[in-house]
């Protein structure tokens, strides 16, 4: 490798594989860019953001909040029908509102902790790898209850498993309360299960109160196929993976019983994944041509394991990895390399990560990926060597740029392509962020040095010249952040 090659590779390691260079990072990667990345692969997973609560704590709190909210509503209705007619004080002392606000603050704090980790970590590749999987297995705060456990979900199901086997990651994700609530698995009941029979005949499986039972009876009881469909379409074999509507329905039947512990369950199960045998659809299932014996929760587990091992899953997921790291339309040769590593290791994600680092296509000199808003903001903070501002300041910016924290618009997750993010309005809003951020972040530092640190050999003469000619430090730094090469990776 020539010296110039070495310089360029160091810059690519920090900016394309990583989350953008902090001052000194490119110099650190320069000695051995491949080794710098390989050293970030860690069997026991990605780093955990600081201070994230557990799912069961959060869901327990959310449940209490819902009950309080209902009580408050009933109380209000009672007052309106016979009381003095004076409405409850709508101000901040309303305890229900206070709890609601605290829940939202928790979600904000979780995102803040994640941002803090992304901005400060020395292992940017490891963190980007975790981000990729969190987006592949999207859950979203567009559903309020799910929002409260996204931080815990990433810490419990995603991060420990991102350098392990895909089948373990898949199993952890699809049985996590965040996914079960997000994709409506929680109340999916086998139409011929014992629970359905009880409910249809007015029975009472667990000593429930009459009013609640009536509410349950008013709802029809049965399957919800949302999670089953998205596992096939988005998490494993992909939409062209060779499954039919009948496969979706059969898979949904096999998954019935999988739920989240609520107030009627033992306290130790609150907010954790549980398997309710009485709600499980009895019998044999056939999914994608394979017959699965009756077997409670093992039935869905066996289907998930088979899906994880399918060649279509390797192709679908490896294509997404290549698309995320290298190009919106990745080369078939690169995808084939990743697939080979996947197949020969039975889906060992450490081996896939190594194959990505070793692939020559991943080091193409021209940056083909346009940064998402999150990547742009994180890399801007890293370039400034800054500690992140409080979440409160970053959240509105990401929202204006179209990437509201923890709130992907659909189970497909955030888009990865330039066309989605480079709309005219989005570029203007990035410019506005760069202006405001630079004014606050640059202080007395030399933007020319910051530019060299942030982009290394990727800095073009045009941008270097524009930064050098800027009339203020802030203007110079803003030009760096908005430069064509900083906007890409």
């Amino acid at each position, binding site marked *: 490798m020539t010296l110039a090659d070495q310089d360029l590779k160091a810059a690519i390691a920090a900016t394309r594989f990583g989350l953008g260079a902090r001052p000194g990072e490119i110099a650190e990667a320069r000695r051995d860019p491949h080794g710098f990345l390989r050293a970030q692969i860690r069997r026991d997973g990605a780093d955990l953001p600081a201070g994230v609560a557990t799912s069961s704590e959060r869901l327990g709190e959310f449940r209490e909040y819902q009950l309080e909210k209902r009580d408050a509503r009933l109380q209000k209705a009672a007052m309106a029908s016979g009381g003095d007619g004076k409405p409850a004080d709508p101000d901040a002392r309303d305890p229900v509102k206070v709890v609601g606000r605290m829940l939202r603050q928790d979600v904000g704090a979780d995102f803040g902790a994640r941002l803090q980790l992304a901005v400060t970590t020395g292992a940017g590749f490891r963190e980007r790898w975790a981000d990729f999987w969190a987006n592949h297995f999207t859950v979203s705060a567009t559903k309020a209850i799910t929002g409260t456990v996204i931080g815990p979900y990433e810490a419990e199901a995603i991060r420990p498993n991102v350098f392990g086997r895909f089948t373990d990651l898949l199993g952890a994700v699809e049985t996590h309360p965040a996914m079960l609530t997000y994709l409506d698995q929680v109340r999916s009941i086998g139409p011929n299960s014992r629970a359905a029979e009880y409910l249809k005949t007015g029975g009472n499986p667990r000593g429930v109160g009459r009013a609640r039972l009536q509410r349950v009876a008013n709802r*029809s009881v049965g*399957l919800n196929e949302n999670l089953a*469909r998205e596992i096939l379409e988005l998490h494993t074999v992909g939409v062209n993976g060779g499954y039919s509507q009948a496969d979706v329905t059969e898979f949904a039947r096999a998954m019935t019983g999988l739920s989240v512990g609520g107030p009627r369950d033992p306290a130790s199960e609150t907010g954790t994944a549980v398997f309710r045998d009485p709600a499980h659809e009895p019998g044999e299932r056939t999914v994608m041509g394979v017959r699965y014996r009756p077997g409670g929760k093992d039935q869905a587990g066996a289907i998930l394991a088979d899906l994880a091992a399918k060649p279509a899953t390797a192709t679908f997921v490896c294509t997404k990895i290549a698309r995320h790291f290298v190009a919106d339309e990745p080369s078939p040769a690169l995808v084939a390399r990743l697939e080979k590593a996947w197949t020969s290791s039975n889906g060992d994600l450490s081996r896939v990560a190594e194959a990505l680092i070793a692939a020559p296509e991943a080091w193409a000199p021209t940056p083909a990926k346009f940064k998402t808003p999150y990547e742009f903001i994180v890399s801007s903070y890293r370039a400034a060597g800054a500690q992140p501002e409080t979440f409160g300041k970053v959240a509105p910016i990401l929202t204006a740029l179209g990437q509201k924290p923890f709130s992907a618009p*659909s189970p497909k997750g955030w888009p990865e392509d330039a066309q989605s993010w*480079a709309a*005219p309005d*989005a570029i203007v809003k990035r410019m506005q962020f760069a202006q405001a951020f630079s004014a606050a972040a640059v202080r007395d530092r030399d933007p020319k040095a910051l530019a060299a640190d942030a982009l290394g050999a990727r800095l073009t003469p045009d941008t270097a010249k524009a930064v050098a000619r800027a009339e203020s430090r802030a203007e110079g730094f803003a030009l760096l952040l908005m430069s064509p090469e900083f906007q890409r990776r």
Partner: protein
Amino acid sequence: MNAILPSRGLPTRRGVLAGAAGFGLALELIAVPAVAADADLARRKVIVVICRGGMDGLSVAPPIGDPEYQGLRGALALNKTALPLDGTFGLHPALASVQALAQAGEARIVPAVATPDRARSHFEAQDVLETGAAGVYSASSGWLNRAVEALSAHRKVEALSVGATAPLILRGKVQTASWSPGRAVDAEARLPTLLQDLYRNDPLLGPALARGLATEVMAQSATADMAAKPTAMMGQPPPANTPQRVRQGREAARSLGLSLAGFMREPGGPQVAAISLDGFDSHANQAGLLNTRLAYMDAVLDGIRSGLGPEWKNTVVVVATEFGRTARINGTGGTDHGTASTALLLGGALKTGGIVGDWPTLRANALFENRDVAPTLDMRGLFKGVLAEHMGLDRAVLDKTVFPDSAAAKPVLGLV
């Protein structure tokens, strides 16, 4: 590029922004042959509202006169609360503005329309809806972008998307504008000008920034007009006990519609626009979810109608979704992915009339694959009808370019 920079001194606020506007304009004039436009056609406007997540047609326009409806929908049936429309159909109670327009002959429903896609995947179906292709992955640009390209051969046409990200329907060869609410650009700074210079060889960022700055210029007067002229809301005002959060959401939605309309009324403003509304995937607790989403949509539509003022008579709005939902209620108070759904047509340019397309009914043997509303109309035919008769696009161009290989999907004629 340098020609737009003032020859000396720092550019002024309006100078920079207007310079950018000029830049965008210059590109248009180079790309588009100048052909004398029919003045009437040039005023015509079309707005596409995309409702993402699979909007439940049986809730938008519940077929309360269909004998099967109540049984299939159980607790979700809207027989008691639907707003009256005709003998078979009602409208969802949250669609008060749409109902008022329907009563004035300015809104119609298309109750069983679907794209050619049958996979029941959101993402595949949205791709097909927006690319206008016969199948998934067969086109990478949006049909509305190709329509703008074809119209531009005859007259100057501008297009705008509203929202922070660009919807696929407007992506493609023609650089279109995009806008979302936010702070005004600080045009005292030199940054916009310096960046345009830095982007001079960048095929992605150069045109995008120029267009974004031009739209900012327009936004200043488009949204100023809106503030100056408050307009009355159609339909029933929300009841007095509506929670503040819901009220604020409705106001924000209405002002989004007003802003979009403001752009379309500007001289040189867009005649073609697209806006996406998210969150219609109602697998569980559908009643509450759709109440909120449809109230939001109703307010956006009301904002568009009142913001367009006298231009409403030149406008057709199409509201469409990627697919409908199962005819039966599911086990969790919602519905799962289905096939045909309801589209809405609104606008002062519409002819009065009943439903568009046939109603297949909900009889067991009429359901598609024993679960969904069966499609009686190809979504492309609906779009083609609007583009042909309202916007004056040629049938051959529609069949081959805007909607590739779609000759079999005949345009729905007589809508305008």
